[in-house]
């Protein structure tokens, strides 16, 4: 199925999504990689508030190439980064900040899938490496946080997107995880390949 979703208005529709569904999204995203995740957890521990509301946005695993001209930020390339690195922090980010929709690449682990299931949220992937194409649908940078402390790839960029996609649902709201399914298939294939290597 193909869905066009508005963020955050259509968050209620997430519960109906299934692995392999194709999404195009319009609305707000915030970028966060390793350092931003860590910082968000530290702020939570200290009881400090974030300057934006993550529960109203899509969390995007991305460190963009950005350019400042005439005082305005422009996004030149902004494909996804490897999501597996964020498995370390994602359960807590979901629980503390009400995040329900994550976009990245390469899949995520069961700990994240469990946390998403509890909030009826999803994880979807965008084509890794398609940085220029992604930037085409990012119309505006609304704000940037922690740029000084973290540097541009790790900073939190608040972006307004139009028809960002195709995203493919990889963890659905019932905790089904494509990563797990495909790992099992690959392990089976591995056995066959190893047998073949022995025969050759």
């Amino acid at each position, binding site marked *: 199925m193909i869905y066009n979703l508005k963020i955050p208005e259509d968050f209620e529709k997430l519960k109906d999504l299934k692995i392999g569904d194709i999404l195009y999204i319009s609305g707000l995203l915030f970028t966060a990689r390793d350092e931003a995740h860590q910082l968000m957890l530290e702020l939570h521990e200290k009881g400090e508030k974030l300057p934006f509301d993550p529960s109203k946005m899509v969390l995007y695993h991305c460190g963009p190439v950005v350019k400042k001209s005439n005082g305005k930020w422009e996004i030149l*390339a902004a*494909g996804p980064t*490897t999501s597996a690195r964020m498995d370390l922090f994602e359960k807590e980010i979901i629980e503390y900040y009400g995040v329900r929709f994550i976009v990245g690449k*390469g899949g995520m682990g069961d700990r994240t899938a469990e946390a998403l299931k509890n909030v009826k949220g999803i994880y979807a992937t965008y084509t890794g*490496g398609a940085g220029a194409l992604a930037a*085409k649908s990012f119309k505006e940078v609304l704000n940037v946080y922690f740029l000084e402390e973290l540097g541009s790839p790790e900073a939190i960029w608040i972006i307004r997107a139009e028809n960002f996609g*195709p995203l493919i649902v990889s963890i659905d709201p019932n905790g089904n995880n494509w990563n797990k399914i495909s790992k099992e298939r*690959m392990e089976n294939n591995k056995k066959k390949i190893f047998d*073949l*290597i022995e025969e050759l």
Partner: protein
Amino acid sequence: MDIEEKILEAIRLAETTIPEDVFKFLENAWKNEENDVSKSQLASILENVRYAKEKKLPICQDTGTQTFFIDAGYDFPFKKELVNSIKRSVEKATNLYYIRPNAVDPFTGKNPGNNIGRFIPYINWYLRDGDDAIIYILPKGGGSENASALGMLKPGEGIKGMKKFVIESIIKAGATPCPPTILGIGIGGGSDLAMNLAKRALLRPLGHRHEEERVAKLEEEILNLANMTEIGTMGWGGKYSVLDVHIEYAYRHPASFPVGLVVQCWADRRAYLKIDSKGNVEVKQ
């Protein structure tokens, strides 16, 4: 001499335009893939490649660690100028937004913002006869670099062990290095030489086999085995997990069988420069 400007041009070319051989392999994969999701991902990849070239934008936001492999003659006269030019070009490329600031202090995580730091940009020299130099640019992203692996195998495991090690490693990496990937494999030497050969193997254009028949056959064989994993484009399954396999080798210690694996993402960005002894510079891809 305009080495600095030419290196800047080569960095920009590498970051915005995919080499012709890679484009052909990706297009072929897109044409022949039967898995719908993977086919859609390959379509996005091709669209992205065309768009980046047209707009002169970075193909991928991860513009890599700036890495330069230099094959230079013993009598090449511009070694110092070349190193200084590389550093200045990298800094300039960062300021012009051609590349993302991608070099951070490993202890503090601080990003100086200019892609300059201890040992970075990374320059790797190979000296040979002659008075000219070829500078290969291979800006490789972090996601694929994280799939690198070193296997210090037992000599008794030999070539079969090497094949299993490669298959095991790419299955473990799954979708994280942005497949369909290109595998660089270095066999022999010590640990450092195996890894160096593995990365240098990626400099060879896709479809080009090793000059020795026995190595060329092994490349074909591992390519076929790797595509039986069904990792597929971005991990969604299908026929194309690996676009090509390149092997380089060195003699090994009798007690060691080192295997280096360096995985390159589909965005196999490369460019190179040729400099002759008079200082004439050509940028190529």
